[in-house]
Each structure stands twice: as C-alpha cells, then as structure tokens.
C-alpha cells in the first residue's frame, strides 16, 4: 500500500516533468534567437583557495568581462581533475561563445579539450595562465598567460648573475617547490635548472635539499627553520617558487636573527609583502606577475578571437623582475592589486 502510493506520486511527478521538458524544448527556437544578443563565456578555474593568486585573477576576469558586458560563467574544480573535466563539459553544454580553461593538471585536461572541440567545432577554447602538456594542441585556439617555465629560467638567470657578482665559485642552496605534482611547480623547477645549465653554472650551484612548500607561507617558514638547524652557516641561498613561500622563508630568516641578504631568497608574483621584502633587502628579487594583467590578458585575447582576428597560439604575459633597482616603481601598484598587507 505504502510503496505503491509513493511510486504513483513519483511517477506522476516524473511524467509531468517529462512533458514539461518537451514543451521547453519546443520553445527553444526563439529563445535561442534573442539569447545570442549578449556574449557568454565560460571559465574553468582549478582551485580557488589553493593560491592567493587565483582570487584577484578571477576578480580581474569578471571586471574586464563586465566592461565588455559579457556574461562569464565560472567554475571551481577544487583541485580535482575529474571535477574539472566534468565542469568543462558542463560549461561547453551551456551554449557559450568562448571557453577559457586554467588546467588543474597539464596533461590530464588534454583529452576533454579534444572531446569538447570535436563536439562544438566552432567553440573557441583558450588555455589561460597554466600551460597544457603538450603545450600546443590543435583542439585549442591558443594560450594566454605567463610562461612559468620562462619565469623559472628568469629566476635562475637572476641567481647566476648574483653569484657571478658576488664572485663566489660555488653557492650552497636549498630549493622550495610549489605543491608537488602541480604544473607551475614543475615548470619553475625545470626552468630554473635549465637556466643554470645554459649558463653552464650547474657546478656553481650545490643543492643541499629540496622540499615542497605547497605555495604556503607557513610551510615555507617551517621548512626553512629545519634547514637552518640542519645546514647552519653552509646555507647561502633558498630558491622559492612563489612569494607566499618566499615570505615564509624570509620570516624564518628574521626569526633566526640573521641580517637581510645574509641568506638570499626570492619570490614570484609581486605581492605587496614580497615587494616590501625586496625593498628591505630580505629578498633578492621577485617576479612581477600581476594577476590583474593576467586576467585581462585572457579576456583581451578571447575578444580578439571572437572578433575573428587571428592570434598566434601563445600570447605571453610580460613578467619583469622586481629588484632593489626598480622596487619603488612597483610598490604602489602592488598595494593597489594585493592591498596593504596582501
């Protein structure tokens, strides 16, 4: 009795639903017509709370989309490739005019991009901020964002220069990486090492230890504290993959009662605190990678694509180095982007 009743209720509901669905589909035609008036683009973010970078970046995307009064649908994959694959498919299904993707996993994202491209042949797809692996895909219209591999090289070069200036013949350093397994971390590691190789300076750089810092200040600080007890005065430099960890490193150095520059470190992003540390001499340099500029870049490129202009596959974000020489120019802008203590 009980059961039958409930199933009657449910089947009635679902029947009405089915009819409803069909009726909706009939209406589809004209709706489609007036919807095409405005432009809608989809953006698939990897992991919003994983890095402080993503947030202002997302804001910038929204802002510059709003300027062009585009509607932008954003999803957050929470660092899970499977979720991102699903979300990319869902976004594509929302009859959008353009799709932007920041991959969680450089290689893992490829197949879904190919699938979407084959299903929606005239949907332009842009990779944003983080490159795919392989970096160039037929399925994809192009890439817009920083080249984290180049940044790695850039940072490597900076250190080589520093060592040469100081006239050291060998420098003992530790290497703190981003979250193990994430694209940017791998690029910045390879880039750095290749830079040393190209400068023929491998043997000048003596790696004491490598630990992941998960992009995090606290990890950066903890790891550094351990290194200080472990290597003591042997330690001369710490290569960090981003500002967050770099700031942690600097903080540990301060607490250990060292003087600025006694052990050199670096950042990458150009967060206010980092730029300040460069100013105060705790950091040798940081790489200026403005999330705002980065976000805008993606939209600009997408706009070009939508207007049918032909763009070359890679559009890189310029990422100048911030060091003692030019730090004052960048400080105000940094505050503007990241806020006072940001």
């Amino acid at each position, binding site marked *: 009795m*009980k*059961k039958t*009743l*409930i199933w009657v*209720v*449910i089947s009635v*509901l*679902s029947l009405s*639903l089915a009819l*409803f*669905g*069909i009726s*909706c*589909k009939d*209406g*589809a035609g004209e*709706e489609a017509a007036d919807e095409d008036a405005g432009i809608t683009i989809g953006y698939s*973010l990897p992991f*919003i*709370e994983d890095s402080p970078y993503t947030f202002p970046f*997302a804001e910038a995307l929204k802002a510059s989309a709003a300027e062009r009064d585009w*509607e932008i*649908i*954003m*999803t*957050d994959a*929470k*660092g*899970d*490739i*499977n*979720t991102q*694959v*699903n*979300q990319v*498919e*869902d*976004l594509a*299904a*929302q*009859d959008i005019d353009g799709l932007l993707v920041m991959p969680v*996993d*450089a*290689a*893992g*994202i*490829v*197949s*879904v991009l190919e*699938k979407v491209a084959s299903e929606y042949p005239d949907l332009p797809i842009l990779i944003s901020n983080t490159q795919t*692996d392989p970096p160039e895909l037929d399925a994809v219209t192009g890439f817009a964002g920083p080249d984290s591999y180049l940044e790695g090289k850039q940072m490597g070069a900076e250190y080589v220069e520093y060592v040469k200036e100081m006239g050291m013949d060998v420098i003992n350093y530790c290497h703190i990486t981003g*979250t*193990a*397994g*994430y694209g940017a971390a*791998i690029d910045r590691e390879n880039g750095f090492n290749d830079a040393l190789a190209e400068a023929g300076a491998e043997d000048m750089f003596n790696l004491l230890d490598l630990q*992941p810092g998960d992009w995090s200040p606290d990890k950066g600080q903890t790891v550094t504290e351990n290194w200080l007890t472990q290597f003591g005065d042997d330690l001369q430099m710490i290569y960090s993959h981003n500002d967050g960890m770099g700031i942690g490193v600097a903080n540990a150095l301060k607490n250990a009662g060292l003087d600025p520059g006694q052990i050199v470190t670096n950042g990458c992003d150009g967060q206010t605190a980092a730029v300040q540390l460069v100013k105060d001499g705790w950091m040798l340099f940081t790489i200026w990678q403005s999330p705002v500029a980065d976000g805008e870049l993606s939209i600009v490129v997408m706009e070009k694509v939508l207007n049918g202009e032909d763009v070359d596959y890679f559009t890189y974000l310029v990422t100048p180095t911030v060091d003692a020489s030019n730090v004052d120019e960048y400080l105000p802008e940094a505050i503007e982007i990241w806020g006072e203590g940001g």
Partner: protein
Amino acid sequence: MKKTLNTLLDQKLVIIILILIITLTVQDRNFFSLRSLASILDHATINGVMAAGMTILLISGSFDLSVGSAMAFTGIITIMLQPYGLFISILGGIIAGTMVGVINGLLVVKGRINAFIATLGTMVIFKGLGLALTGSSPIKGTIEAYKVIGQGEFLGIHYSVIYLIVVYIAVWYILRYTKFGRNDYAIGGNALSAKLAGINVNLYTFTYFVFCSFTAAISGIILSSRVNTANAIFGDTTNLTVIAAAVLGGTSLFGGKGSVIGTIQGVLILGLIERAMVVFNVDTNYQLLVRGFIILAVVVTDAVTQRRRQLNLERGVV
C-alpha cells in the same frame, strides 16, 4: 495523512532529485535531453562506483578513507605498466588498487586497528608511494586504445554510464541475493549473532575492505583513461565526497543499515548540484558555501525525521 507524509519523507531523496531536475529544466533549455541527462550519470561515474563499494563497507560497520589514494595509485600503476601491453597494465593497476584494501582489511581484522585510523594511514602511505613512483609529477598514457575505456561513446553516451549502471545493478543483486551481501547486513547489524550463526566475521569484513578498494581501482582505471594521465594528487578530496554520498543515501555510519539504491540517489543529488552551480552561474566564491549548506541541510533534516519516526514508533502511530 500522517502516513502519506512519512512515506513521502521516506522517499525525500527522489523528491529532491525531481525538484532539482525540474528547476534545471526550467533554467536551461538544453538540460532536458537524453544527452545531457546521460552526462549527469557520466559525471557521477567515478565517485559513484566508489560509493557503491563504500556502501557495502559502511553496512558492515567499517569505514575507508583511503579510496582516493587507491584510485590514484591504480592509475599510476596502470599507466606505468603500459609499456607491457594494455591487458597487463590494466590488470596490474586493478591488483595494485585492490592491494590497498587487502592491507586495510588485514590491519583492521588481524591488527584490530580502528578502521578510521588504519585507512587514514594507508591513505597517506599510498599517496606517498604514488608520489615516489612518479617523482611527484604527472605521467601520461602511451596507449591510444586505453583512452576508449573512459572516453569512448555510443550514440553520444559515454561507456562510463554503462559501467555505473552495471556496477549498481551488480552490487544491488549481491546485497539482496547472495550470502556475501546478507552477511554484510548481519555483521553490521549484530556481529555476535553473525559469529554464532557460523559466519566467519573476520574473513567477510576483510573481503568488504577488498571489495571497496576494488571499486576504487575500477574508478582509478576509468579516471586515468578519461584523462589519459596519472598523478598522485588525484582524488585528494574524493574520500569524504564518496562517504558523504553514501550517507546522504541513508547508509548508517554505524553499520547494519543502507542500500545502493539510496547511495545512487545521494550520488545523483551531488552531481545535479554541481550542474546547477554551472547552470545558475553561481559565483565561484559562493559555490563552496552552497555545497556546505546542502550537506548540512540534508543531514539535519535526516536527524529530525529520524527523531519523529522514533517518537511515532514509541507511540504506536507510525
């Protein structure tokens, strides 16, 4: 009247699903098509398959946090073994993933360790193992044919939909019509009587752990083929999602109670919510908030209705 209300409450998940589907249909005219409905199932597959295994384990009164790691580990082994041919690699992957369950089972049954802590341990261990094997960077598949498993389509519908359906029918049948399944309820419901009835409680508990990891291994295969990559960080957050889905479906965390029919409903609800976030273009900053509230809402209503039903039972109303 009260009767109807209670019966409706019994089926509240179905109702929720229907409501979600209706609202989605209203909002998105492309939604109510075979293809997009299938895509809901398709997206539910990876977590869904694991949730089925988790349900069996939960019913027996145990718990597994290591499914995520097992899934990722399977993928890694499979991709690494690909040079030795497709079959070997898949077999190897599944064995590897299932090993996690074997170890969990041994720790819990022989070592008498609390399942929560044992699987917490294996979760860390196998993630570490994965990182060590891959040098903590993703590894790419080399065999084209392998992609078919996770990406192949039939009339625009992913095979994965079929896997999901098959797994659920299989598990449903197992739970209802086999000793393996009935003993599950017996052990979860009253381990002592199970023992006295001559059921080898330890052996079965062990096999439930193995089965759970086996489903995780299947998911691992599907995922690694779907993205044709393996990475130790895959599935970091999976375990709680999977457990949440099962519990959403009315499976008790204290054993003896539950069904895959409930679980699949839980899985679908979570999937539909994800889709709704996209369709309604929920601001990314608030998507998390929504997820949290939904889970909280469900568990609270569940607690409340449970209370009412108990009260009615005492008072012979029902």
